[in-house]
């Protein structure tokens, strides 16, 4: 059974792959939303899982597992039909396009910043080496202990409920019946815990943090947790467990965000992920070690809770030691100096950014004027609504092009980052362009419309879509404008 659970876990990591999918399927702008969806799914799976499991266990201990098997099968069939690699959905260029935009931004920064970035990096790198800083170790240990005890207690609770003393099960019950009863109780406890923790996180935690600071909040939280944990095995009835659950929720709610907030104080621009990873690592260690607390059952049925409480207390001691932490005077001086350097650097960058913004605005307004000038020279047939008899034709053309592009899933690429596209021109398929051009009626030789057919570029500026243009490689803006000129 241990082996099978191990095997099941080995093929986990769906969330990681799903995140990779988000990167492939969605443009930068929408990724945050999609990542949040994955996060919400993960949390709801953790909170609802025990309830569903406990509920289904009423029909037999194996029922939840078989139901889950059925759902896995359904999900697999659905995944087989609907989940496609990004390339097969015709979105392969999306990432490339994003990268292009990103690269260009980087280039801009290098050009604009004139070496400022380098300076800043140097300062950042000098500032902080995570493993040399004892406070990082302490806060990681705090996270580890807190996670350990919180995770441990979720394993211990089901076992605690098995004790006849609490009145959930009686000694007369068979193993199967005991399982069902415990399942029912746990399915009530877990959502209660989750909801009260959410309430704490939204209401109590911000106030405590504001008033006393994060470390004090963590200290109070873990102390409350330790108290609740030690209290648990002495409760006379299962109903009292709701009280300890609420205490646990308050404790965990107050302490769960402490490490990431505290660690983020150390995080610079270049090393934020590395430093925040310390908290995640500590969390993982706590999650792995937590369930091992059940081993203390070998000694006694009260000891596990005491150990759980002691670990929580260790966490609170860690927070307390950080509260008392005083840095060596020379370090403080160095830090202050660096702080000043950073503030002046940030100020300089801000000024630079404002300057660049003004320049850009000026450029934009100039461009608008140029566009107005250009419009006077361009063949009016290219503008929908401006050239009576051509209006309908242009509408059909633009609609056709729109539909063609939509089939190839290019729309987003064209619609997004208008400025980038205007400057670089999107490379569309040649055959697509010729198809569109074939649909244009024969030119009227009398009005000199010949260039219209020969041209390979089409402006759809005012055809109801955003301002965008299609281009074929090798076509220069000058050649394009020449093609559009009114014949003399």
């Amino acid at each position, binding site marked *: *059974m241990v082996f*099978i659970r*191990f*095997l*099941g*876990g080995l*093929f*986990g*990591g*769906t*969330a990681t*792959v*799903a995140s*990779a*999918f988000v990167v*492939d*399927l*969605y443009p930068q702008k929408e990724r945050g939303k999609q990542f949040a*969806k994955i996060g919400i799914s*993960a949390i709801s*799976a953790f909170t609802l*899982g025990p309830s*569903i*499991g406990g509920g289904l266990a009423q029909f037999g*201990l*194996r029922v*939840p*597992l*078989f139901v*889950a*098997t059925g759902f*896995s*099968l359904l999900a*697999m069939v*659905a*995944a087989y039909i*609907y*989940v496609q*690699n990004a390339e*097969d*959905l015709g979105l392969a260029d999306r990432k490339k396009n994003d990268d292009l935009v990103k690269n260009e931004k980087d280039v801009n920064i290098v050009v604009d910043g004139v070496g400022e970035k380098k300076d800043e990096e140097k300062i950042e790198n000098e500032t902080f080496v995570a493993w040399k800083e004892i406070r990082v170790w302490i806060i990681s240990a705090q996270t580890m202990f807190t996670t350990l005890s919180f995770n441990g207690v979720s*394993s211990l609770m089901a*076992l605690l409920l098995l004790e006849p003393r609490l009145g959930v099960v009686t*000694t007369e019950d068979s193993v199967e019946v*005991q*399982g069902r009863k415990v*399942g029912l*109780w*746990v399915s009530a406890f877990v959502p209660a815990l989750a909801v009260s923790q959410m309430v704490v996180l939204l209401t109590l935690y911000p106030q405590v943090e504001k008033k006393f600071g994060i470390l004090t909040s963590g200290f109070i939280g873990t102390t409350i947790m330790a108290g609740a944990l030690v209290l648990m095995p002495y409760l006379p009835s299962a109903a009292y467990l709701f009280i300890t659950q609420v205490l646990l929720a308050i404790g965990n709610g107050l302490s769960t965000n402490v490490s990431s907030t505290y660690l983020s104080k150390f995080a610079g621009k270049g090393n934020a992920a590395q430093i925040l990873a310390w908290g995640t690592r500590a969390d993982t260690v706590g999650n*792995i*070690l937590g*369930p091992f607390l*059940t081993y*203390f*059952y*070998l000694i006694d049925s009260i000891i596990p809770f005491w150990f759980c409480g002691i670990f929580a207390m260790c966490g609170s001691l860690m927070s307390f030691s950080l509260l008392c932490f005083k840095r060596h005077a020379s370090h403080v001086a160095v830090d202050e100096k660096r702080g000043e350097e950073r503030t002046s650097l940030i100020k300089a960058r801000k000024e630079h950014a404002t300057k660049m913004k003004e320049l850009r605005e000026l450029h934009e307004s100039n461009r608008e004027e140029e566009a107005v000038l250009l419009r006077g020279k361009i063949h009016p047939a290219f503008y929908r609504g401006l050239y009576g008899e051509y209006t309908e034709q242009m509408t059909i053309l633009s609609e056709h092009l729109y539909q063609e592009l*939509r089939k190839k*899933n290019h*729309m*987003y690429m064209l619609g997004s980052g208008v400025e980038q596209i205007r400057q670089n021109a999107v490379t569309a398929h040649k055959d697509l362009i010729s198809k569109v051009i074939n649909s244009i009626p024969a030119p009227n030789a009398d009005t000199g419309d010949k260039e219209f057919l020969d041209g390979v570029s089409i402006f759809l500026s005012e055809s109801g879509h955003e301002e965008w243009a299609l281009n074929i490689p090798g076509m220069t803006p000058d050649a394009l404008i020449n093609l559009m000129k009114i014949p003399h």
Partner: protein
Amino acid sequence: MPIFKNTLSKADQCMAVLLACVVIDLMGLSLTIPILANFARLVQGDAPGCPPAALDGIMNETVRLTMLASDECQKSVNEIKANTGVLSTAYAIASFISTLWMPVFSDRFGRRLAILVSIFGSLIGFLGQGLT
């Protein structure tokens, strides 16, 4: 013009299925929490020193209760409880390993295959646990 809604429907469909997969995958851990202890006991058979489950209702109640209260039975029940920790830990360690190899796999063989393999693994895990 609703440019994005129409054209991204395929991606959205894909995403919806992926979310379902994530939920099912993570349920692998949480679904069994409430039943784990007794489930382990069912799988392991009767604890030594305790009254056998097969004789429930047949056995003399006084004898059964005496056996349940005996030190030997208490000890073996505590052992079983201790072992449930291994079940949770096995899953946690394996999930940790999966976060290491899954991304590599998905980069090399395509994300679609990775998702299919992963959900198949969950299926085998659930079914295997159900049948043990």
